[in-house]
């Protein structure tokens, strides 16, 4: 092998390694985005039962309301760090995610919003089993926490 060929083989090899590691990072980012979307669906599923009762579309039942509220608070309290890795925003993944790059910027308030959701779902957990009026009152702060974060950090339709 001449030096020139050695060099070409070396560059080719390095390129392959580099591109496979790029691929690897993409895959991790895609999986993170998928996990976030699954989490959002689980929020929506449990909120669906609570909201149905609050609206009067579903008859109030303390036990199932309590279960949904506990689920909601558990979901919000999960350690989600691995689902929000840098490089998994819309700037990297395009239409696969609505998560805006601002989430990862230095002045991001995203953790404050996460805390607001944890607090609002904790209040829901204490309220949901106590009665329909308590449940109703606890919905608005949860919605406010969702909307507060979506207002700034989710791509508009």
């Amino acid at each position, binding site marked *: 092998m001449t030096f020139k060929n050695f060099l070409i083989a070396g560059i080719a090899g390095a390129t392959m390694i580099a591109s496979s590691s790029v691929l690897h990072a993409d895959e991790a980012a895609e999986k993170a985005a998928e996990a976030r979307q699954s989490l959002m669906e689980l*929020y*929506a*599923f449990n*909120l*669906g039962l609570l*909201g149905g009762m*609050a*609206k*009067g*579309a579903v008859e109030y039942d303390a036990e199932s309301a309590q279960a949904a509220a506990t689920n909601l608070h558990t979901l919000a309290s999960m350690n989600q760090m691995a689902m929000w890795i840098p490089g998994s925003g819309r700037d990297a993944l395009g239409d696969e995610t609505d998560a805006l790059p601002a989430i990862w910027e230095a002045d991001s308030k995203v953790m404050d919003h996460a805390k607001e959701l944890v607090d609002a779902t904790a209040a829901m957990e204490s309220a949901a089993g106590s009665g329909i009026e308590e449940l109703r009152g606890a*919905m*608005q702060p*949860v*919605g*406010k926490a*969702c*909307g*507060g974060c*979506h*207002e*700034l950090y*989710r*791509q*508009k*339709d």
Partner: protein
Amino acid sequence: MRKLLRFFVFFAVIAAAVAWFLSRTEPLNADAVAGLTGDPARGENVFWAGGCSSCHAAPNSKGEEKLVLAGGYRINSPFGTFISPNISPSANGIGGWSNLDLANALIRGLSPVGSHYYPSFPYANYTKMSLQDVVDLKAFLDTLPSSETQSQPHELPFPVTIRRSVGLWKRLFLTDDWIVSVEGEQMERGRYLVEALGHCGECHTPRNIFGALDDTRWLEGAENPSGEGRIPGLAPGQLNWGADDIAYYLETGFTPDYDSAGGEMAAVIANTSQLSQEDRAAIAAYIKAIP
């Protein structure tokens, strides 16, 4: 040739005089709000229904900060960038204003010194407000914290900078006629909340080339003036939610699928969540009744 030139000069002078006349300011009668007394508690409801803080609170304000109306919100439009002014009760805001000054601003789009406001301030909707609501709103605004922030000038290109031209715009598009005809107390209340105070059409209705709302396509959805995405239509066939779903969305921000409002609508929900159940139900009833 001299004769022709003289004719053109004559014609130009006449045209300028007509334009000057048509673009004049027309304030309310000096006694328009005489005898009305403001109730700050009712005014707070007008404040939330009117969405004042969405534009006049400093950008990204949360909670109590929404009551500090320091201005600074930027509205990007094809006509340039409008920057909302300070309307807190300070010398840099509207501290010295009378009830009549506020009525002229909201109903006629005129400043206390009698110049036209640009219709980025949605007086094309507020022009339908009741004078009692204006006076109540004034009483509430007077209770809010002062901010000394200086209002920033709009960033507009020529010829939009000629304020007098807004007078012609008003002559064409400023009307207090209702857009949808409705019957019954709840429907009328809903119409007042949507067409006058809530100024929903400012985003949900497409505009003509002069930037005025196209009433023939009322609430049928429009380009987002910020250039990002599209604002959904609320007309039949576009929004298939029930009235209860709409009212609940305005209360909590949750859609029937328990997704939540984002973008500017999250800021709107922050306002509508402060209204009474009856008012939200009235808005929902009106939305279901638009043709």
